[in-house]
């Protein structure tokens, strides 16, 4: 754990050093030094702007994430378990998978107006197909032998969900959550840039108009930091807990 943290900090220090050197060498306002970015970060934080926009974006990410996971899991499960459903829904899934995020965002803004619900809905619709594809794969790979066992011992729905299906779907859920978080916050930024007047995407838009690269980087890094914290504080402990049965001491008997 300590060694991992040390390596992590070391990599960041090396990248920071390289950046500092090249920025100092180029001496161009379009490539600020890490120090200038940090200064921009502090000043934005000091004014309260950063925290406000960060929380606004985080709220959108959270809502979109929740609904995208929920709908995606249900859809993927349904398609993975029922062949007929898959046959009907698959063309739709392929369509949404390949529809550029930008097109969905623009269409929803055009149809619904520049409102919050359009913004969040656009993000959800962008993410649902990815989650559905991952979960469909998981639903198809469920162990039929354990399924039979559960039937023979009359597992009720609760036990089937919690003790039979969820543990088998867990790796797929984890994958969907990881890629989901990363994808969703990027799309949220685009949505904010195009049609919202708050959030990090909006701030980036402002900074872009005056070529304030330091602010752009300060805002981006602050959100990367948040995603990293979510990974450390939420996803990794969850994963460790769920994988306990695999990491117990080695078999006692050959």
């Amino acid at each position, binding site marked *: 754990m300590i060694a991992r943290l040390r390596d992590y900090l070391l990599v960041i220090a090396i990248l920071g050093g390289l950046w500092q050197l090249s920025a100092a060498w180029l001496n161009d306002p379009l490539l600020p030094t890490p120090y200038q970015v940090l200064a921009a970060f502090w000043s934005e934080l000091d004014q309260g702007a950063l925290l406000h926009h960060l929380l606004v974006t985080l709220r959108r990410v959270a809502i979109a994430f929740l609904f995208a996971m929920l709908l995606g899991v249900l859809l993927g499960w349904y398609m993975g378990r029922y062949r007929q459903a898959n046959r009907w829904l698959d063309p739709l899934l392929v369509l949404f998978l390949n529809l550029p995020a930008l097109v969905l965002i623009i269409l929803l803004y055009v149809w619904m107006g520049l409102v919050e619900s359009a913004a969040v809905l656009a993000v959800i619709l962008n993410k649902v197909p990815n989650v559905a594809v991952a979960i469909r794969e998981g639903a198809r790979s469920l162990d039929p*032998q354990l399924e*039979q066992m559960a039937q023979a*011992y*009359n597992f009720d729905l609760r036990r089937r969900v919690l003790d039979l299906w969820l*543990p088998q779907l867990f790796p797929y859920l984890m994958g969907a959550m990881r890629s989901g978080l990363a994808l969703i916050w990027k799309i949220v930024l685009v949505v904010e840039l195009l049609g919202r007047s708050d959030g990090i995407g909006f701030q980036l838009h402002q900074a872009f108009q005056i070529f304030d690269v330091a602010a752009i980087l300060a805002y981006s890094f602050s959100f990367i930091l948040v995603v990293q914290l979510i990974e450390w504080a939420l996803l990794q402990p969850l994963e460790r807990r769920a994988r306990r*049965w695999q990491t117990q001491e080695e*078999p*006692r*008997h050959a």
Partner: protein
Amino acid sequence: MLELRLESKAYGRRVLGPLELGIEPGQRLALVGPSGCGKTTLLNILSGLDTDFIGTRVLQRQDLLIAYMFQEPRLLPWRTVAQNLVLAGTPEEAVGTALEEVGLDDVAHLYPRQLSLGMARRVALARALAIKPDLLLLDEPLVSLDPQTAAQLRLLLKKLLAERPWLSMVLVSHDPLDAEALADSCLYLGGEKGRVLLPSEEKTASAG
């Protein structure tokens, strides 16, 4: 107790049936035959898991409890031994006794991957018996064990069955010796083109 009239059942390219089978309380029946003759298929039909056949399966009591011990232990790998038993319907306070009965102690907190196959079979047996079934279905309970472990488990099965004279049992085995040791009647499946030969031998028909 349970009556099965099987007209025919297609599995893969093979066909099972026609055959008639009645299981009475306390009866111990062995299904013997070469691999691929439909023994497990017949067991699945008897258990009610497989309903895709032509014929009728009648339970005399609706609350008839059937426990199925599969050929593979089929324990949930992400749950401990104790949790596996409880999930299958064992009352929590009965877990310890159920495991002791099959000769296991100090395994309740282990995960299935920490068990040997012989131990996992015993856990599966404990799970089957702990729900206090009227009918116990055993699918090759002694297969792929080393001779010593198999002998031990055979003795244990014999003892546990002797302690429960009311319990009916249907055993699937490719080994006539196991059938002889554990059952008192025998049904030979197999023969030409997967056709089923009707009971060709009734060993000591002592079952009531």
